[in-house]
């Protein structure tokens, strides 16, 4: 299994600003994933982050809006840029190990 922590746990931000969310895993993992869960909705994969390469984004998500860093095998960041109220969501970090995915506690973002 894997234990995942995220910072911050929640934040309230002004529109037009950016927020960087950190994800830390207690073991080395090859793949890390970022999901978005809009209010009352299901989870949508934003991108897959492999260490040493550029993140792979899903349809509808672009690097300029959601830049991702993956400097090592235990850490990743997701930045939500130029935020608007539509970005208000829970952002979850996830790692894949042994054909399972473990999810972090999430970052609850509110954009005003």
């Amino acid at each position, binding site marked *: 299994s894997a234990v995942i922590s995220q910072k911050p746990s929640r934040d309230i931000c002004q529109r037009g600003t950016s927020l960087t969310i950190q994800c830390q895993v207690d073991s080395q993992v090859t793949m890390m994933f970022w999901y978005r869960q809009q209010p009352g909705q299901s989870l949508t994969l934003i991108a897959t982050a492999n260490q040493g390469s550029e993140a792979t984004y899903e349809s509808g998500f672009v690097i300029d809006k959601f830049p991702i860093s993956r400097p090592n095998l235990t850490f990743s960041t997701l930045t939500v840029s130029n935020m608007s109220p539509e970005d208000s969501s829970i952002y979850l970090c996830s790692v894949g190990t042994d*054909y399972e995915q473990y*999810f972090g506690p*999430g970052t609850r973002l509110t954009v005003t």
Partner: protein
Amino acid sequence: AQKVTQAQTEISVVEKEDVTLDCVYETRDTTYYLFWYKQPPSGELVFLIRRNSFDEQNEISGRYSWNFQKSTSSFNFTITASQVVDSAVYFCALSELYNFNKFYFGSGTKLNVKP
């Protein structure tokens, strides 16, 4: 295309009632994984079960049981003698067996268990 459907948006039961959450999936793959996750109000996703497409045996874990039927592409989840602590949103998900990083989540079923 891969798709997971949870037709029940919200279910309300009284404590000690049994409740079944439905999950129907679509996939072009012959091998795949199915999952159930629980999301309590705190927001964290809690892993409940993984089932691979090779194994159609039903599984029981305490008050939880799962019925996997490939013939109907269903993976239903039953809670026996529900408790207030079972109140949460439950997600069914599908992943490809050899590309497990790609999860397809259903829309979730919100379960309300009233005392």
